Every structure is written in C-alpha cells, then in structure tokens.
C-alpha cells in the first residue's frame, strides 16, 4: 500500500518529466504518441487515487442513496 502512495508521487514526477521534455523540446515526434498515451494512463491512475475508480464511486453513490 505504501508503494501505491509512492506510485502517485512517481506518477506525478513522471508526468512532470514529460512536461519538462516537452518544454525543453527534447521530444521527438516519434515519441509523442507514446508519451501522450503514457501521460493519459498516469493521469487516469492519479485521478483514481483521488476520486476512486468508477466502481468505487458508484458503490458510494449507492450507499448515499440508501441513506
């Protein structure tokens, strides 16, 4: 579990690396698609950490309805 916490951090720093690469024009056009894909994955992962997966959210919404 602690690893997951790290992974959020790692994800953020990986995202920041991609930003730096983009800003400093270090990226080749060939890499862009891969990087974009990777960034999307990372952002999705991070969002899940903040907002929960859809399943989790739905479950909570259900719980709220029951109340």
């Amino acid at each position: 579990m602690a690893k997951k916490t790290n992974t959020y951090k790692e994800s953020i720093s990986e995202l920041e690396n991609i930003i730096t690469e983009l800003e400093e024009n270090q990226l080749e056009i060939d890499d862009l698609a891969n990087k974009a894909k990777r960034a999307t994955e990372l952002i999705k992962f991070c969002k899940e950490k903040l907002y929960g997966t859809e399943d989790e959210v739905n479950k909570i919404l259900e719980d709220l309805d029951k109340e």
Partner: protein
Amino acid sequence: MTIDSISLKDLLLTIRKEMADAFSNAYWIRAEISEIRENANGHCYLELIEKDSSGKLIVAKSRASIWADTYRMIKPYFVKETGQELKSGMKVMVQVSISFHELYGFNCAIRDIEPSFTIGDLAKKRQEAIRQLQEDGIWDMNRTLDLPTPLTRIAIITSSTAAGYGDFIDQLKKNKQGYIFHTTFFPATMQGDGAADSIINALDKIYEQQEQYDAVAIIRGGGATTDLLAYDEYELAACCAQFPLPIITGIGHDRDQSVVDMVANTRCKTPTAVAAFLIEQMDETADNLLQIEESLKSLMDEFLKNAHSRLRNNALSLSQRIHLLLREEKQEMERTQGNIKHSISLLLMRQRQRIKESNVKIKNTIKSRISEEKHHLEISEKAILLLSPDYILKKGYSLTIKEGKIVKSQSELNKGDTITSIFVDGKKESIIK
C-alpha cells in the same frame, strides 16, 4: 479502684468544642487532590494530600468536603477560570475551615478556591512537558513530516460516542468534489482520566499497520471542553511527536493549544476543520494534477502545431527551392544558350573573316602567279622567236632538206642528190654536182 472515664461521645464532643475554639478561622491551604467524588445530594467529597519534594511520598492526608451550596458556586467558577474540572492529581489552593464531628471525624470544609494557583501549576507542568520534549529532540519530528499526496487513507482516533464523529465522516465522504477517503476508526477515550493512555493505545494499534494509512486524525467531537489535561501530558505528546505518520489534531477547545497540538503535524481547532483541511489538501493535489494535465495538453498541442508548421514550412521551402532551382537552371541554360550563340556567331564571323582574308590572299597569289607566268611566257616567246627558223632564215640563213629531212652534214650529200633549200621567201631545188 475507680477510674474516671468519660464516654467516647463526651470526649469527641470535647475535641469538637476545643477545635472549634482553636481553629475558628478559615485557612488557605495548598494541597493535591488525590480523590474526588460527588454524591447525589450535590456534596463533593475529596481526599487532599501533600507529597514530599520528590513527589513520590505522601506526607500528609486529609478528608475534605465541599458542601453542595458552596460546590454549586465553586465548580463552575473553577471550570470557567481554569478550563478544567477538579480532578485527582490536580494541585489546588483552597480556603478551608476545620471541623471535627463526633460521628464523622476530622474534616476540612472547602469554602473557596483560588483557580490561578491551579492554572500556574498546570502551566508549569505543561512547560515542563514542552521543555522535556525539546530536550529529547523530538519536538519537531512529527511537525516536519511531509503530508503525503494524495492524503486519502486516514486513521481516526476518537471516541465512539462522539456525535461529532458522524458529522466528520459525513463531511469527509460527501465532499462535493467526489474525493475518495478511506477512513478507519480507532476508538479511544478522548477526555478525562485515562484519556492519554487510551489514545496512546490507539496510536500503538495504528503504528502496527502504519503502511495502510497516510495520516492520523485525533479528533474530539462535541462534549464539554474540559478535562483535556491529557493533551498536555508528556507521554502522549511524546508519542505523537515521534509518530511516523503525520498527526492532524481537531481536539476542539478554545483555550491555548495543547502540547499535543503543538507537536502535531497539523493542528485544526475542530473535527470539522480537520475534514475541511483534508478536503483542502485534496483540492491542492487535484489542482496540481489538473494543472499538469492542462499543461501537458497545451504542450502537446503546441508540439503538434509546431511539428505541423515545421512540416508545412519544409514542404513550402521544398517547392520554393525546386522553383528556385528550376529558375536558376533555366537562367543558366539561357545564359549558356546565349553564350553558345555568341560563340557561334563569333566563330562564324572569324571564319568568314578568315575566308575573306584567304580569298584575297588566293586572288593575289593567283594574280601574281599569273603575271609571273605571263612574264615568263613573254620571255619564252621572245626566246622562241629568236630561235625560230623564220627568224634565222630572215637573217640569211637557209635550211637544206633532203628527202624531207634537214641535212646537218655535207657528208649526207652525194652527187646527183636533189636537195631543197629553204629561204625566208621560198625554196629552190638544186642538184649536187
């Protein structure tokens, strides 16, 4: 043998009278409460003690009471002034009157109390705890921990009966942003006697599974804001200060911060404030993520746009370059063509010139040759003329012909031969004699 004796009652009545006479005044005394309880009638019964300087050995002990009519006034006054309930272990300065009752014995009846003494003593203890924590070098340990991101897995220490807990969980889980919090409840006694030990116990449990949590929230929802001395106790504060997870407090009191508040990573006033803080942290994290997402998007857009325009520029410059190259080539060709024309006409001109020159030369040569020949011819003519037989015949010479042939010697001629002599003006035949 008769011994004088009095009844127990008489003796005690005598003591009661003597004491009433001797201790008719009221006395301000300093003591520590070792026991305290209220009864149904509203009276308060205590045991007061005094310890030696080591604080371990009890050197004096007495019963005491606060009668209901006094207690009704003293109790709220003391709480208002100190923020604390009277409780065991507390040092107090009280005004007492001494009494002795034949049935109930010695008693100190408390008539008044000086809260500032207790405040001073508590402050001293508190200061002592702070000094000790600093001396131990653990004062800043929890405070300097970084709050993890995201901050979602919260171990909550609170009382199971606290009404505020439900509100806290509601507030946390029904946040409008939709953040997911994973909360785990660790029940503890949050105030009064045993609170410190109970909280330490809960912390120990969390410590054993610390990797499952991002932070610990110590909250005390609702209830009177009294009897929070536990939060100034050294043991609890030391435990919090050294705790490996960030501790967020929401103990809910209006007075000065407790020592636990001071050593905690984050101090909030109330459980509500803790929930708000946690949501705020998530807002920050989410904002950060959003910013990253947006700058990624715009950077990638920009990257693509740049790449696209670079490509277009390249294509453009390619066609431009081709055009330029073609133009240059054409120009070069035209120039070459011109050159060739020029060269050819020059060549032609020269050639023509040369031909012209040659013609003249040939003419001249021919002319001179002709005249030379002419001259030569003339000379030859003359010579021929001089040598011609006519010319010689004219000079008086004659030619002798025998049988059609020129006779060059007299030996060719015999007697009787007919010869023909040719003269310039005719011929004559003759016969040799």
